[in-house]
């Protein structure tokens, strides 16, 4: 099926629904080995900085946000930002993943000044502002998405993280994140970013209120856009963590995570990299994911707040990440956001 070209939605659905666990894993692993013939597994040393948890979006799956004026709400000041970035550089980090909420009181100039401030002081890659934030800035300022992206680029934005994709099916978004940007808005931010020369990643958060086939629709939306732009560096699926959220359900298990990872590798034939998520699945399942299509171990995550707010806290040192990769039979290699080895 794979050898004869691309999977279509029905074929992918058939595989996802019917292929036995090890066959699906093996097919994905073969594709992964074909794309990356060296037995390498990459990782990046970076830090998540959440500049604020203030958000008017109110997504039901989110345990991190606080409404404006809440006693636990925060916006980081420059001293706090600097301290976090300096610590990252001290630990050998090369990138900051900077994200926040939909803060109603902060103009676009706030973010431009934040980026300029960081870039003027530190030599570090800024992977910042997921598409929903960019759409929110555009609405707040009454300007187009292209202008928002281009102003942020001028201020120092290097690439855009693929967050906020959740499930790229509007009927699902209407239930779980009704005030967040739509599927077409998310995709058009990415298309515009790619057009302006910014690379981005893409994510999926699954295991909440979507139907299983919605997950595949999501993958095909990404594949179509990637055919046009080639701007995505990697795909990162992760499982919804229900604790402290407004969606009560059991956490997605390891088996269904691995099946989804494998079908992602098979559908996204135009993506070079698939990332395992140790932050949500734990190091042992993330290691197993290296046999189900993943070729990247993600980030060392010197700091992570969003998943931690949903009660899941795994911690891994660089040494431990390397040991895990090596004991799975691969060679660990550090990379940058563009997946170039460094």
């Amino acid at each position, binding site marked *: 099926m794979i050898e004869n070209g691309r999977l279509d939605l029905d074929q992918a659905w058939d595989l996802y629904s019917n292929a036995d666990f090890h066959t699906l894993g093996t097919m994905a692993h073969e594709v992964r080995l074909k794309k990356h013939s060296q037995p390498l597994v990459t990782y990046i040393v970076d830090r998540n900085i959440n500049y604020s948890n203030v958000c008017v979006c109110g997504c039901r799956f989110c345990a991190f946000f606080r409404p404006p004026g809440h006693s636990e709400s925060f916006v980081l000041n420059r001293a706090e930002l600097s301290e976090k970035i300096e610590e990252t550089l001290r630990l050998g980090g090369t990138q900051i993943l900077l994200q926040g909420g939909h803060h109603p009181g902060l103009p676009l100039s706030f973010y431009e000044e934040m980026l300029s401030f960081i870039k003027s002081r530190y030599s570090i890659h800024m992977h910042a502002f997921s598409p929903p934030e960019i759409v929110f800035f555009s609405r707040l300022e009454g300007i187009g998405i292209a202008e928002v992206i281009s102003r942020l680029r001028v201020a120092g934005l290097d690439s855009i993280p693929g967050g906020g994709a959740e499930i790229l099916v509007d009927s699902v978004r209407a239930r779980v994140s009704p005030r967040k940007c739509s599927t077409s808005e998310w995709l058009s931010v990415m298309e515009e970013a790619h057009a302006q020369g910014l690379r981005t990643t893409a994510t999926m958060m699954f295991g909440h209120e979507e139907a299983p086939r919605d997950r595949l629709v999501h993958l095909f939306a990404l594949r179509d856009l990637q055919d046009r732009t080639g701007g995505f560096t990697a795909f990162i699926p992760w499982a919804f963590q229900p604790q402290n959220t407004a969606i009560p359900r059991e956490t*997605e298990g390891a088996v*269904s995570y691995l099946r989804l990872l494998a079908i992602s590798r098979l559908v996204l034939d135009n993506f070079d990299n698939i990332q395992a998520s140790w932050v949500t699945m734990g*190091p042992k399942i993330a290691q197993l994911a290296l046999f189900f299509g993943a070729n990247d171990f993600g980030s060392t995550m010197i700091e992570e707040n969003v998943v931690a707010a949903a009660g899941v806290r795994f911690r891994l040192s660089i040494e431990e990440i390397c040991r895990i990769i090596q004991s799975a*039979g691969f060679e660990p290699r550090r990379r940058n956001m563009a997946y170039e080895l460094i």
Partner: protein
Amino acid sequence: MLEARYFKRLGLEEIANKVAQGQRLSISDGERLFACPDMNAVGSLAHHVRTRLHGNIAYYVVNRHINYTNICVNGCRFCAFSRKKGDPLSFELSEDEILDKIRANGDGLTEIHVVGGCHPDLPLSFFEDLLRKIREIKADACIKAFTAVEIAHFAKKEGKSVKEVLERLKSAGLQMLPGGGAEVFSSRIRERLCPEKLDANGWLDVMRQAHESGIKTNATMLYGHIETVRERLEHMAALRELQDRTGGFVCFIPLTFQPANTALGHLAPSTGVDDLKTIAVSRLMLDNIAHIKAYWVMLSVKLAQAALYFGADDFDGTVIEEKIGHMAGAESQQGMTRREIEGIIRDAGLDPVERDSLFTRLTTRPQVANSCEGPRSILRRDDGRV
């Protein structure tokens, strides 16, 4: 099972044929499986055997663990639980405390798992009385108690034969022995890690006598410290040999070593790949032991679920309160509910079946309502497919 060409490419063709035909694997076959770089190939072979034996079922038990004391005359270097008498962190439950724990969580219990340290003073009569009292308050639960190491300790302390100790405990209500204390049978390892402990022959001999007395037992292996792959396989082969003679082993439980708070704290914990490979190879080597356990307390719930596709058919149970693994840094929760366990098994696309200690299926229980309806409800078809 994967298509033959995958096994051929990995040089596992001969082993795959043996597995397909139900032939016994050698220790060198086991070494080749451990050395295989492809997790899906090894997993697929083990899953084939597990499915041939148990179909789409994954078992669990409603049980309670009781660790009656951590005072122990042995000083095993891999243990974070044991304390010497007089140590401020030592504890010793009274008979009433033990019975209160059983009364507090008695509803629906079908198994009471009792193990502790080799206490220097407690007489055999204490345990006989205890088993009788447990039997009085919980007549319908299986008492699975005392590792082979504890049994040998009782015999030595009382100056009685192992046979007599087993018979006395059996008449007091003992129905089954858990499989602990086997560690790794290699004398090289035992001399270095647990020189005071009952040796391999002693362990196997207690089990043989238990089996001959009509007491079924489990068997374990503590791996992931300083043993070699070959020593793991020799351990499995020794169990397989005894099982050929007695047929008394019910379930094999590979236990991943947890280094925290032990004298081996400098060792790195095992990784997921090693855990799953060990489970898979156990399933393939132990062709005469019916069940392989994915013990979630040690593995974590997520890895234990994945293990159900790498040869394991049992998820263990509700446990309620566990001290030995957790004192060594196990990060799992203390206990699980029936609902949680059934949800995890269904989420893996398998059918949960409650069992008793001997793996008799319990069908009179009302089924726990499905806890993962919605998106994942497709994950529930035959032979592990979504």
